[in-house]
């Protein structure tokens, strides 16, 4: 009896080992690369990061459902970093040796700055929000779109046309009000220099701490200085809250409020404060509002993978779709040249510099990555809040290259 039990035990062990080996063999045979997404799903800037990461995730699901890029699938590892630098760094440490890790998407500027030297050494592509410093020093960082300073420069150009269209004379006075952090300051590196070449007066810059409840002090100061236009930074709902405060102070009647890429979105700010935001404008490198919801690529993937009505889709979802199209295009190039065995970060680096002009279903301007360019595109559109919607008031316009106007260290 004891002998039979022993034999049965040995047999079971062999069976388990065989199953494990078979499973690992199957995994080894599947061709795939790894993409690490470090972003906020629940944290402080989830309003920006979560929709973008969902877009990326759905794009990857779409690729994989069609058999991958030239037969190579993409494994996306998503980590909720809650805007915490330590969590980002720890997650990268954990996954840096994962099978064919070719790209890391990250939203935390502090973590990006700490990890860039290591990722560069590891030869991994870094895809962060458009902080112009990385465009000034082309390396392994490929930005989502035109840099923040380019966005401010494009908005200055728009306001000059608006000023003229309104038949006003003299120089318009422009206020700048944003978060007191690296993001708030980075939009000025080059755009301030550009503003000096334009017929306008840039008022003393104003910054407020993140999490500020009332923005009256800064708004009153800019109003007192005679602002005709105020450019508001921050991730929605911050810009919405600033304009809400301006409305309460009666400033929206005489001052034109403007925001950047992360300004009011239709499902968040515009819906909650439609009356206060009416007439404000936002500059964007991706489609926004109803136009975003009507985009065929966005509506197909959103309804297929999220199974939710289109009015629930945040326009920032398209930022993720833009990244997935870049990844798909670059992987195809890299596979053509290097094949799967040699597909690594270095191959992807080369490929990213070769997808200049890539179209992405009309969700953003054509790709501008090249051997010397790290901005994903250089075109922006302007939208106005009108009757609870974000309505386009311009077509795609080339943003000025403010990054090159700054004297970098």
């Amino acid at each position: 009896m004891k002998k039979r039990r022993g034999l049965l035990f040995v047999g079971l062990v062999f069976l388990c080992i065989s199953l494990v080996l078979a499973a690992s063999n199957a995994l080894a045979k599947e061709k795939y690369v790894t993409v690490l997404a470090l972003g906020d799903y629940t944290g402080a800037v989830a309003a920006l990061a979560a929709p973008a990461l969902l877009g990326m995730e759905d794009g990857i699901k779409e690729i994989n459902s069609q058999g991958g890029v030239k037969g190579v699938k993409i494994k996306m590892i998503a980590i909720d970093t809650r805007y915490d630098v330590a969590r980002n760094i720890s997650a990268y440490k954990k996954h840096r040796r994962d099978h064919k890790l070719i790209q890391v998407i990250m939203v935390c500027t502090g973590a990006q700055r700490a990890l860039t030297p290591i990722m560069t050494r590891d030869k991994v592509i870094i895809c962060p929000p458009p902080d112009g410093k990385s465009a000034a020093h082309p390396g392994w960082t490929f930005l989502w779109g035109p840099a923040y300073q380019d966005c401010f420069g494009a908005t200055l150009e728009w306001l000059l046309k608006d000023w003229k269209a309104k038949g006003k004379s003299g120089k318009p006075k422009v206020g700048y009000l944003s978060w007191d952090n690296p993001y708030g300051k980075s939009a000025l590196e080059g755009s301030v220099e550009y503003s000096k070449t334009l017929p306008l007066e840039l008022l003393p810059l104003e910054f407020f701490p993140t999490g500020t409840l009332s923005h009256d002090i800064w708004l009153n100061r800019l109003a007192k200085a005679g602002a005709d236009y105020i450019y508001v930074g921050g991730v929605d709902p911050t810009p919405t809250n600033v304009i809400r405060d301006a409305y309460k102070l009666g400033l929206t009647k005489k001052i034109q409020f403007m925001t950047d890429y992360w300004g009011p979105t239709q499902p968040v700010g515009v819906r909650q404060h439609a009356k206060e935001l009416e007439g404000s404008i936002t500059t964007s490198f991706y489609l926004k509002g109803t136009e975003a919801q009507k985009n065929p690529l966005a509506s197909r993937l959103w309804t297929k993978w999220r199974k939710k009505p289109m009015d629930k889709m945040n326009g920032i979802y398209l930022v993720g779709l833009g990244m997935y199209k870049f990844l798909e295009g670059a992987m195809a190039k890299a596979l053509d040249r290097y094949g799967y065995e040699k597909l690594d970060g270095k191959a992807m680096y080369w490929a990213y510099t070769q997808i200049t002009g890539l179209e992405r279903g009309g969700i953003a301007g054509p790709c501008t990555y090249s051997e010397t360019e790290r901005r994903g595109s250089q075109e922006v559109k302007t939208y106005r809040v009108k009757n609870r919607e974000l309505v386009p008031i311009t077509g795609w316009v080339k943003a000025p290259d403010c990054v090159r106007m700054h004297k970098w260290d």
Partner: protein
Amino acid sequence: MNRKKVLDAVLAGLFVLTLVLGCATTGSKAPPPTLTITPAKTVLSPILIKKSPLQFSGTGFVPKEIVVIDLLLPPGVKVKGANADEREIGIATAYADEKGAFSTKMQPLATLNWFFQVDFTPKGPDFKSIKPLPPRAYTIRALGMDSDRVCTAILEFVKPPKKK
């Protein structure tokens, strides 16, 4: 010797080995790394957010490398934002100096995120939503980014004293 005794002996051996390897280098002759947590035993209270954050210090890492401080989650303890299969959460980082020593404080956002598990609203952290980690002993690990040198220490959250 019966089978149970053999099994006990093997388990005891493994336990001793784990203790010995608690702080280890990977094949180098360098002295084993150290990790000190200050305070190592505390009540999980808001004072840790800004006024007296936890401090981590250590030695024995490679000069200039990043040292990652991880909270190793015990079985059954979940943290907001962690995937179901994640057992380690980065809670602090530091750069080792020329001698391979480091010292760092836990940042307020990390304390809010991982110890208090706070939710965020458009206006900032929502303190009504806090869900502090349960009082117990937690293993904290210091890990060299490039060297893979590793050391662990215990952080104990104790129950707050009962109000009289």
